């Protein structure tokens, strides 16, 4: 039972990460469309923010792995 719950928990965490990174990607697209010459700066900031959000989601994965 704990195995299934752990898997469900991991899936829920990934929903959060997906939503967050999707929003970042969306705003990055809007910003690039508005100002194409700042593309590389926006891209760098987007990747950094995505990595930090992924860190939060991976917390949940680690807990799910421990709970097994």
């Amino acid at each position, binding site marked *: 039972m704990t195995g299934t719950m752990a898997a469900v928990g991991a899936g829920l965490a990934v929903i959060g990460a997906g939503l967050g990174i999707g929003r970042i990607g969306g705003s990055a697209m809007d910003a690039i469309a508005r100002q194409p010459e700042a593309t590389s700066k926006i891209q760098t900031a987007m*990747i*950094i923010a995505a*990595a*930090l959000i*992924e*860190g939060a989601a*991976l*917390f949940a*994965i*680690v807990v799910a792995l421990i709970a097994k």
Partner: protein
Amino acid sequence: MKNRNLVGFFFFLLFVGTTISAFGQDSDEKGEGKEKEESERTFDASTFIMDHIADSHEWHILTKKNGESVAVYLPVIVYCREKGLDMFSSKKLAHGHEYKGYKLEEEGDLKGRIVTVNKDGRINEGNLPFDFSITKAVVGLFFAAVIGLLLFLSLSQSYKKTGISHPKGIQRFLEPIILFVRDDIAISNIGIHKYEKYMPYLLTVFFFILINNLMGLVPFPPPFGANVTGNIAVTFVLAVFTFLITQFNGNKNYWRHVFAPPGVPFWLLPIMIPVEIIGIFSKPFALMIRLFANITAGHIIVLSLVCLIFIFKSLGVAPVSILFVIFMDSLELLVAFLQAYIFTLLSALFISMAVEENH
């Protein structure tokens, strides 16, 4: 170049020392009935993956068709209060044999750890011995350290000979990266007056994590397949280094921000102070978990995609699986660089918060 020869000799000694009993083979358990049973057993993907991710006392190279396994048996160094320090090859502990009162657990809670054994039973939770063995991750770590030393010592030697202006050879590759760490990470966060003191640490952490991440992606030959940054003990130590550097370099401003945050009314202080103190510990903790989980998750994904072939037991799955694996591996390459950058960036950020002046 004396430095390079010395480092090469040290590398050689290290390798000779860590493979004391190389390429041992075990010759027991060869019944014919057992072979047939093993070939029809279903493939257990999760054990396979966990065994590849986890640290182990031997370096398993391949398993031959008749069940014998070829492995490099790494040395075991254990210290137990009654028996003192013991060093022997892990071949003596292979397959659950017991040697000198020590046994390698094969399943259960303590799987993969060395326990002390009584005459009849087990001396358990009170008395697990201290395990200082040279395990697979330690060998990988030594190898990465030697690579780093070779690269950077030769870099500094060539700077001494030709001067800073004209880069050639390995300088051309490393100099932009070092300047990137200095300009974009150190100076822009810590400030131009104080960054120099922390540059050695930031550079070391960046290249250490980068080299170990990249080495974890290459499965073969032996010194490369070790999962160093995916080992939570290693990332724990890196996070502890960042923690110690921020704490020992915190100035009055920093501690005032922790214990009396400016602009906070006094009745909120009983809540704010514990929150700030938890924040001091949770930031390096997040660093540790982020690096560990990213690298381990990447390895698990790649291994699972390769295991698909064995689960379906058909060759038709192979092209699809290999394509997916190539894609995931390129993503892992991006993650390797990105995680090194993020760890260094956040360390620089924490250091800057500790040393910044009042503005």
